């Protein structure tokens, strides 16, 4: 059945590509194709030990599959970890497609085909049980993303994605080859590890390879270019969905394939392996750098890109610490990020769809024109900033708790300050795009786009009220790794340090709001346009040439303070390496002088060298 599902999706991808001339029909076909992974993942829920009702079993699927292609066997199997990440991807994917039905107009067939292919690759990665199939599906995913990035026609984006993609692929290949030489087998479950340096070097290579997909500093350089130049539904899926694959792979290799005891062989720091601690520190650094750079951006997509980098850093922190609390937090953050970042990128797309603008300083006042988009963005931003009106807070709270539990004195303040930084850029989005002076007379976004955004926001609200349900979802993973699931009820989570009761928060909020409403409705009010007040009655026409929207260079003092520190970033380092390689290239080219006499001299020199070698030998 599993093979048939893969083949069906492949065929649907071809159908979507063939319907190139009819973007809408192609989009609808793809939407139905995109529901398949979701149904698949729901059907598997009982197999990994979740008590989902029987009627949600849409397909009767085998739990594992060995597929022989003649020269190699692909081993696929559903594991709790793979299931969880597949759930994330399979939920975000249909929304991206739903959005693109109205959004993608040009050459839609190719877009949809590549999207489905990337999903096929992701499914393969999440199910893979051996190195070969993991790597193959990883590459398929990676290259179908390239096909999508290529649609941007932006050389910088394409080149940076490609260079980093290949760099990551090579790091991964080197890492898995080291593992293979260490254990002599391709199959994950057969790998019995000795705690030695080779394994950990391999693991370091693998993690730095996955860090490219997971956009950790300093492998993040490609992301702002790609995120800011490609089409929004794709970026939503790339940032929201596919970036999680990097973290999936990190967890898979660190805790499942290699195992915690080997990790600890490089020494531990407060019961956290040095390896994990380093990863956590890089994660914290990523969170901070991403946040600061996000504050500086004016392009809406670039802002979201850097914010994505910052938010993904939190997942790395959780994975690095690796306690049940931290793992739950990391997975929770992954879930939140999937939904809110997809929603935000889609909303950015919707704004572009209506206004045709990306620059925050050129937008403004859309809140009243596109109220539903605004509200979706508002909820997504609550989740992003971790404000406890969505589930975003619970994830960050778990991570903070985990860090304090391990007494991480330096990581925690960085995380906290990155969290505060998130308020800054969130407000930049809210103010610059949706509030302030209305500048565009536009309609609300089309229905398919709104539906996609709101369906993405919905889980954030559900998991706000019932974070315990989320813990239930992740407990099979923790059990799989031999960890104790954290103690919880549907709406409380308790740790050794404190407790968090969502019901109390919500009830108190309702109480507070009742008070506020009572005060608010005490007197009637009248609504006047913006210009009425601050122009003090003068006709607005006089001020048409003056922008009353203060969004241009919004955080200028901040930029002035921080820019000198971020002027020389990771990008410059990579460019320096690239330059060095190019100089090498120039050197290699200089050999081919184009003069035939030189070439014959080379032959003679080679002859003499060989003779010399034989003589010495």
């Amino acid at each position: 059945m599993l093979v048939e599902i893969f083949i069906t999706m492949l065929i649907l991808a071809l159908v979507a590509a063939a319907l190139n001339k009819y973007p809408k029909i192609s989009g609808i076909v793809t939407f139905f194709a995109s529901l398949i992974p979701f149904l698949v993942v729901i059907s598997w829920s009982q197999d990994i030990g979740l008590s989902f009702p029987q009627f949600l079993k849409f397909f009767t699927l085998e739990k594992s599959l060995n597929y022989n292609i003649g020269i190699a066997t692909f081993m696929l199997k559903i594991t709790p970890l793979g299931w969880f990440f597949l759930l994330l991807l399979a939920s975000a994917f249909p929304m991206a497609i739903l959005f693109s039905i109205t959004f993608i107009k040009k050459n839609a067939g190719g877009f949809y085909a590549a999207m489905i292919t990337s999903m096929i690759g992701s499914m393969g990665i999440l199910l893979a049980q051996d190195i070969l199939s993991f790597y193959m599906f990883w590459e398929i995913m990676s290259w179908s993303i390239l096909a999508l990035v290529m649609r941007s026609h932006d050389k910088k984006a394409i080149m940076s994605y490609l260079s980093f993609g290949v760099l990551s692929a090579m790091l991964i290949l080197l890492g898995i080859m080291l593992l293979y030489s260490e254990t002599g087998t391709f199959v994950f479950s057969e790998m019995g590890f000795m705690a030695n340096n080779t394994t950990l070097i391999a693991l370091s290579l693998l993690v730095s390879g996955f860090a490219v997909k997971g956009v950790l500093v300093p492998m993040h350089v490609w992301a702002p270019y790609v995120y800011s130049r490609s089409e929004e539904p794709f970026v939503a899926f790339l940032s929201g969905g596919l970036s999680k694959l990097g973290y999936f792979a990190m967890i898979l290799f660190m805790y499942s394939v290699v195992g915690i005891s080997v990790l600890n062989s490089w020494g531990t720091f407060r019961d956290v392996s040095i390896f994990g601690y380093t990863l956590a520190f890089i994660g914290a650094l990523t969170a901070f750098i991403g946040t600061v750079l996000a504050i500086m951006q004016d392009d809406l997509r670039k802002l979201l890109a850097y914010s994505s980098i910052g938010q993904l850093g939190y997942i790395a922190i959780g994975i690095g610490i690796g306690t049940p609390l931290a793992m739950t937090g990391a997975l929770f953050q992954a879930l939140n990020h999937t939904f809110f970042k997809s929603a935000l990128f889609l909303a950015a797309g919707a704004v572009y769809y209506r206004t045709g603008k990306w620059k925050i300083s050129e937008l403004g006042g859309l809140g009243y024109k596109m109220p539903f988009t605004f509200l979706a963005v508002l909820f997504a931003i609550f989740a992003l900033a971790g404000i406890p009106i969505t589930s975003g807070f619970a994830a960050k709270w778990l991570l903070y708790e985990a860090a304090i539990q391990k007494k991480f004195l330096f990581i925690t303040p960085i995380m906290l300050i990155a969290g505060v930084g998130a308020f800054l850029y969130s407000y930049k989005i809210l103010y610059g795009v949706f509030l302030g002076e209305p500048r565009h007379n536009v309609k609300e976004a089309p229905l398919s786009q709104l539906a996609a955004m709101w369906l993405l926001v919905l889980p954030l609200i559900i998991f706000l009220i019932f974070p315990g349900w989320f813990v239930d979802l992740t407990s099979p993973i923790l059990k799989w790794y031999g960890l104790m699931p954290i103690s919880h009820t549907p709406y409380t989570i308790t740790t050794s340090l404190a407790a968090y009761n969502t019901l109390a928060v919500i009830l108190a909020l309702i109480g507070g709001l009742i008070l506020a409403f009572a005060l608010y409705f005490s007197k009637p009010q009248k609504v006047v346009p913006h210009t009425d007040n601050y122009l003090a009655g003068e006709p607005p026409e006089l001020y048409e040439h003056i922008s009353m929207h203060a969004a241009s260079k919004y955080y200028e003092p901040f930029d002035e303070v921080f820019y000198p520190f971020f002027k020389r970033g990771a990008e410059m380092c990579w460019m320096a390496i690239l330059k060095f390689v190019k100089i090498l290239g120039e050197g290699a080219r200089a050999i081919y002088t184009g003069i035939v006499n030189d070439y014959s001299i080379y032959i003679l020199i080679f002859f003499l060298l060989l003779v010399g070698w034989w003589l010495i030998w």
Partner: protein
Amino acid sequence: MVMNIITSILVMSGMVALGFAIGMLFNGIARKVVARIHNRVGPPVYQGYIDVFKLFSKKTNISHGWIFDLAALFSVGGIALTFLFLPVAGVSMLSGEGDLFLILYLIAIPALGFALGAGASGNPNAAVGMMRALMMMLAYELPIAMVIVAMMVYYNTTSLAGIVAMQSNLKWAIGIPPFLIGALVADMALQGMLMEKPFDIPLAPHEIATGPLVEFGGKHLGSIILYKMMGTVVETTLFVDLFLGGGVVLNVNQFGWFAYLVNFIVWFVLILVVFLIAVIINAVFPRFRIEQALKFYWKYDALVALFILFWIFSGVMV
């Protein structure tokens, strides 16, 4: 069971009312104190009550649409919500249900609501003011986060009620050398939190016409003023809870209602003292520019906080 719930709801409502009342009083006191320092007569101490009453009785209330109204709703609702999660004078209303991190994020709810309203007003001054407020927040959060993390690690709990409980029997954190310095660092941060000079950059009445507040009037302004007043209470209480044992001097189990009374009085005095320190500094200092404030907090304040972190770090390592 039902009685318990009703009782606690009543207690909490009372506490919120008390919080608002103290906030309004503080507003009056502050104005009086500043006036006396400036050698003026100043308004009466109860001026805060008069202001709020006046604002809520205005006939014309100007709104700029529903997003603008969110400010009024979220600011009052959110600050009341935050107050409920603080242990006040040893009374932990809901503070067992959340912890310090939750409080840090809950404070953001009214702030964000306020920011939404300010942004929706469309006035550039409001936007500039909000920008400054947010940058101030980023600035003072770093030192205070470092101190708070140091305290959490030291007391091995993240719950504010837990930290207060650990400081019972007058074992206040301020008596521990690193946290004495920590209290100074946090007091600097408090100055920014309360938006008193030299950190009243977001309001800056002379530059940007009170910034975010500029478009508010009537009941909207009343809500915002209420939020500001309650904010002073919340922030000073947070400080007192962290460093001064929450004002708890007598054990409730031992002394019963008398202990509550004494604790409340001590708590009130303590937050008044903390507040007055801020007000007096406010009265004699000019205003920083925003980048100066940022540099101040991130360079000097944070450096001292880092020193505390290392101090605690060495202790934890041993």
